[in-house]
């Protein structure tokens, strides 16, 4: 079976992991960082994110048909590679576990008030399990379909939100005296762009030519635009002073959209939540694939299917450990810092070593 992915599929994998649970809170974070000028922080974070993605992709591009586990072995040796792989396993595992749990909690709090969160977790796991057990090809295909659907839904809904908002709420676009603050706070926004680290688990093949860099740049520019539209539409609808109060601000904003001529579509949150669930499934699927892949590399003698089953079972158990939503949020916040290690520091170390070795 061909295990390679096309440039487009890799592009959507970047989309699938970056856009995740965080989008419901993104407008709040942007407004917290820079008020109505939050779009500047998103733009700066998007530019930084493009460079980081290029760096990871470049490693995979140089070492064709290899994941981080293999090229790290070449660059830093076996023992450090095991340390790196373990960090990635821990990161990906906790990430997909916590995303599943917090998403289930959010669905329970907003839509399915009576459904136990564990049942919702199980449904997320079932879809992700199916894809992961079929390996990268199915993961890539499913992610591609879901991503296209969600982009259409999200952009459509956001444009509708704009039409109902007030343009005066978006002003001031920029406060010149605050420019330094925007730059400092942009680094906090980078957490919203984390997810590109999954690329360390996706090998590039001969089919993936230099165009992959264009594709990745395109998707991050698109994502930055989508993020800016998300933020601006929420501000237009609710005003920056109110946006800042809600952890699920995107849902709150969508509930304030009322299209009177469309009687059966007056409440748009049900449509949005369907798209959002697809986004979550993409994230869970890709991060769980990352965890499974590196675990199977570390324990290469254990059957792949057994590893998949064990990881999902363990994840289900771990997902039930936090008792409150605040605890889950704390874990995700701490994990974001580990995301900087996995998304920036480790690839940067390997990138520098690769460059140095090239000239030595």
């Amino acid at each position, binding site marked *: 079976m061909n295990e390679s992915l096309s440039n487009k599929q890799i592009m959507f994998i970047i989309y699938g992991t970056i856009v995740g649970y965080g989008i419901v809170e993104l407008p709040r974070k942007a407004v917290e960082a820079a008020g109505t000028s939050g779009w500047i922080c998103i733009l700066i974070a998007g530019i930084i994110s493009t460079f980081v993605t290029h760096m990871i992709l470049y490693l995979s591009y140089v070492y064709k048909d290899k994941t981080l586990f293999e090229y790290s072995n070449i660059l830093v040796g076996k023992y450090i590679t095991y340390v790196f792989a373990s960090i990635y396993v821990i990161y990906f595992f906790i990430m997909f576990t916590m995303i599943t749990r917090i998403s289930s909690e959010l669905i329970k*709090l*907003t*839509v399915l*008030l*009576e459904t136990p969160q564990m049942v919702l977790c199980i449904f997320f796991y079932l879809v992700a399990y199916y894809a992961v057990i079929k390996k990268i090809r199915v993961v890539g295909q499913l992610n591609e379909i879901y991503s296209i659907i969600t982009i259409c839904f999200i952009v459509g809904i956001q444009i509708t939100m704009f039409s109902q908002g*007030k343009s*005066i*709420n978006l*002003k*001031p676009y920029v*406060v010149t*005296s605050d420019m330094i603050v925007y730059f400092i706070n942009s680094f906090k926004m980078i957490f919203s762009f984390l997810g590109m680290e999954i690329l360390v688990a996706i090998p590039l093949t001969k089919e993936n030519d230099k165009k992959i860099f264009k594709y990745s740049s395109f998707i991050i520019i698109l994502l930055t635009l989508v993020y800016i539209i998300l933020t601006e539409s929420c501000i237009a*609808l*609710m*005003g920056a*002073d*109110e946006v800042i*109060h809600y952890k699920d601000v995107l849902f*709150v904003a969508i*509930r*304030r*959209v*009322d299209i*009177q001529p469309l009687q059966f579509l*007056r*409440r748009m949150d049900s449509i949005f939540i369907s798209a959002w669930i697809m986004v979550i499934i993409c994230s869970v699927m890709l991060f769980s694939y990352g965890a499974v892949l590196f675990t199977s590399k570390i324990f290469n003698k254990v059957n792949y299917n057994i590893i998949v089953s064990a990881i999902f079972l363990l994840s289900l158990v771990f997902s039930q450990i936090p008792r409150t939503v605040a605890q889950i949020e704390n874990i995700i916040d701490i994990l974001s810092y580990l995301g900087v290690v996995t998304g920036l520091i480790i690839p940067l170390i390997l990138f520098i070593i690769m460059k140095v070795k090239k000239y030595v």
Partner: protein
Amino acid sequence: MFRVFVCKNISKIYKLLLIFILCFQLCGCWDYRDIDKRSILISVGVDRIENLIQFSGEIAGETGAEGKKNKEVKRVSVYPFVSYGENFEIARLDLINKVPKPEFLGAVKVVVFSKKYAEEGIESYLNRINGEYDYRKTLLAVISKDSPKKLFYINTNKEQSMASLIENNINYQTSHGKALYTTVGEMLSDISMKDIGYLMPYIGLENDSITYLGLGVMKDSKLIDIIHVKDTDGILYLLSKNVKITEEIPSIYKDENLYSLRTTVKKRKITTNYVNGKPVINIDLVIYARLRYQYYIKPIDDKEIKRMEDELSGRIKKYVEDIIYVSQKKYKCDIFEFAKYFKGEYPEIYRKIDWKEEYTKAIINVNVKTTITNLNLYDHNTKVKY
């Protein structure tokens, strides 16, 4: 044996499994309740009776026809409810005890606050709506001259609900530029800004009919005044998205003749400035007017058109200036969202000043330019040439 059977019939087994799963899918959620098993609230009223909160409203009744063959068909559309409690939670509990089925708030069309309750402050109830998942956040909120309970009970046995009557009335008035349709979401947004007030439709019973009576002025979410409908033109020229106001201008001949004109706002531009420690608000209105008819047909020349335009401009300017003056001096509250414009243009100054205080001293410049765009295709100057 079993393995061979499975291998041979794998596609059939998949189809059977699919049908089996589809059966579950088609029956919906396992704990769903049919619409007739729920008490669907379509309006909610909030009032204060002595120390108690009073919830009243309407519940959608059994829909469809009731009765037997050859007998008169009886339709029950809505029935009212009322409950009491020291606070929202106890009043809700009282309601739960009275309704026969689990209540559903997603279909509520309007929330009606009594004048008395609005004077005490409605912010807590708006926060309640915001926090309850069921409620639509785009819900219409109005203040009623009469107690909400009276409104809902007077409507007993009528097929159309009071909720629909109120919603349709305000909707109609708004679409024709004569009222403002204020939703709970918009009010929450204004409340969060802290520096501004907002307006709410004020309704009441007049000759047993729901009537739009004007706008309630809300400062810190408390009703401080009612602006009668005939005095709301200035507000509508400033805030309405779809202004259509009829103005009558006396004829130049000083006779009984009147010109009936319909005005619309073509362009509304609000800019701000900060001069000598005072905010300056410049309002530019471009008004288009259409002559609908004259009471008595007389020739109209360009000079007369110009006179009408000037008179209309002056009149609209006065409406706007008067209501802004009232908001500055009487209400001491920015009900026109000028704070948003000032904040947008001078964010650094806005952070330093107390807008509530500064607004009362703000200099307002209103500039109105009216153009009569057509005379309704009627030639008032026709001369017989034979």
